[in-house]
């Protein structure tokens, strides 16, 4: 069975201006720069990274807001980007998204009923939808009379639950959750997360779960990928990941997390304290883009961008500390200056 969603060398660059004497030399942001991973059916795949690492760009490209600069995304083996440009409707309905900010993602002038009807009427224009709206509200455990409320009358958590109901409207099989609880208080987060976990069980959904919160990820994801400046530096099963983080950046992230118990403190790598600034994505450091902050930096690091290496049982790392084992792929093959 093919993965439900597969990214192959996805790149998305933005031109944000021009420089040079004639203002002809484009200034490019490499928001996503060669990202590959596969998500299996029923999986919650965690994509973790700090702001600007390219997580939302991956999400927006997946739902078709952007066209990739290069590379492919396949949904059950079928490419999401055809030559004609228009995405087939049967695929469109399968992939939905919940945005980070529930405040601005809901139209304040529409009632909950109208908000939930919109995706229904796009995919089934001729039908009456009130019954389905009620059903959706029940699915997300909101009282049915909420359909007559406007977003402004809802709390931040309730708005996000309505956004989840909207994502469910077209009966998708895959939902992207782009930091769905980052804007909410931690006391509300649990309710939303548990709702998402129940919905996944009940409707056999797969999630791409984007967050900057590793502690949250530990509790929801089956596999995790870490992103830094448009590239993935490590991918592993969640349990393996937290027991044995390999990439120096992952270790720095983990050691930076404020935790609430001694038990968690013991899980934090001690040696990799956070230092240095996150470089501007317009001016990404050469070679391994983490080299300016890395305590293990070697001579090769600023010169050569490391390759992704499987260190065993699907634990992938992109760092010169873990050279490729096979002779065909010696570390340092791809020289970038």
């Amino acid at each position, binding site marked *: 069975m093919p993965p439900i969603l597969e990214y192959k060398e996805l790149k998305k660059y933005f031109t944000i201006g021009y420089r040079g004497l004639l203002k002809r030399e484009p200034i490019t942001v490499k928001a996503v720069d060669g990202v590959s991973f596969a998500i299996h059916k029923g999986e919650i795949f965690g994509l973790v990274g*700090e*702001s600007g690492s390219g997580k939302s760009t991956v999400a927006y490209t997946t739902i078709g807001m952007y066209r990739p600069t290069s590379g492919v995304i396949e949904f059950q083996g079928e490419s999401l980007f055809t030559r004609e440009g228009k995405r087939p409707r049967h695929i469109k309905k399968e992939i939905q998204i919940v945005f980070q900010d529930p405040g601005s993602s809901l139209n304040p002038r529409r009632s909950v009923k109208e908000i939930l009807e919109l995706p229904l009427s796009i995919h089934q224009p001729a039908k009456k939808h009130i019954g389905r709206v009620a059903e959706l509200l029940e699915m997300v455990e909101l009282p049915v009379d909420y359909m007559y409320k406007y977003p402004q009358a809802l*709390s931040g*958590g309730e708005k996000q639950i309505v956004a989840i109901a909207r994502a469910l409207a077209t009966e998708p099989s895959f939902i992207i959750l782009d930091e769905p609880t980052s804007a909410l*208080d*931690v*006391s*509300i*987060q*649990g*309710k939303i*997360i*548990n709702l998402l976990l129940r919905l996944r069980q009940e409707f056999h959904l797969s999630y791409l779960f984007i967050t*900057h*919160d*590793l*502690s*949250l990820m*530990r*509790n*929801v994801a089956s596999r995790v990928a870490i992103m830094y400046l448009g590239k993935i530096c490590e991918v592993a099963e969640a*349990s393996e990941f*937290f027991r044995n983080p390999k990439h120096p950046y992952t270790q*720095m*992230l*983990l*050691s*930076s*997390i*404020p*935790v*609430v*118990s001694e*038990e*968690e403190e013991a*899980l*934090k790598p001690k040696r990799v*304290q*956070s*230092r240095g*600034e*996150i470089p501007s994505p317009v001016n990404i450091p050469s070679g391994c883009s983490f080299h300016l902050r890395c305590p293990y930096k070697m001579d090769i690091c600023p010169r050569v961008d490391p390759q992704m290496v499987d260190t065993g049982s699907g634990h992938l790392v992109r760092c010169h500390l873990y050279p490729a084992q096979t002779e065909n792929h010696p570390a340092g093959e791809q020289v970038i200056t």
Partner: protein
Amino acid sequence: MVRMDTPPLLEVRDLQVHFKVFGGHLKVLDGVNMIVRAGEKVGLVGESGCGKTTTMKAILRILPQPPAKIVGGQVLFRGQDVLRMRPDELRQIRGRGISMIFQDPTAALNPVFTIGQQLGDVIRYSHRNGRLDARQIQLKALQSLKEVALADPERLLHSYPIQLSGGMRQRVCIAMALATQPELLIADEPGTSLDVTIQDQILRLLHNLVVERNTSIILITHTLGVVREVTDRVYVMYAGSIVESAPTKTLFANPMFPYTRGLMQSVPRLSGGGVAEGIPGRIPNYLHPPSGCRFHPRCPHVMEICRREKPPMFTVGEEHYVACYLYAC
């Protein structure tokens, strides 16, 4: 070192603040009580909208009045009531007594002046009695930028805020807040707008600086882990009052107020185990706040008396206080 033998540096007594809005008065602060001792690192936690920033602004007397109205209470700084000070007395307190770091470093810096000009103003203002010349001010400004571990401070003096990253701006704000050598530093969610690795650097820096100088600090954050790592004592706020206070270790080992317990359980653990459901309901409407214990509509243990009377603080252990009838005896 926390000084227990001297009178408290700051004591907030029964502080009540309302906001006049269309349709009535928001009764936000409902009798806040807190004490900060010399050298003490205090954490203030609570969900957004519970009144943390309002309390701090009242302490510094920078609440916009109207719409705010201080309805009652006292803010004693070294025994003197800040709320009743004359403007010249207040100037003595601000800066050299108390200074504040705000959540959003971008809003806290003026975009049209260089870092050097802004830092210079703060230094000049806090040395009004012993005048400094331009050279001395520049030296002090350089020194304070070095203290917050900013690279290339000479160049930074001539930079504008927009030329700096978020983390650098927050370091500049810390430099400005500490340049006046305050006795009490209020840091209102100083890392929230920054990334985890940068937030971690900022918090470590802040921690080292206040420990080095034995400055007292009130650290506001909704990240409980930060509180655990940085503070000696925690105040938990719910809907406009302090509902629990304890030494940090005690609070994390044995939270007692039902809201505090729910909050602790809500934090996802790096060690796994799933995510707890959290606390049902939401923070009350301040136009018509609940009677008695303001937490009662959300409380799983609510009793008859909770709806009628606001619970007083009960002592439940050494330096551990809880405003909840479950602990009355």
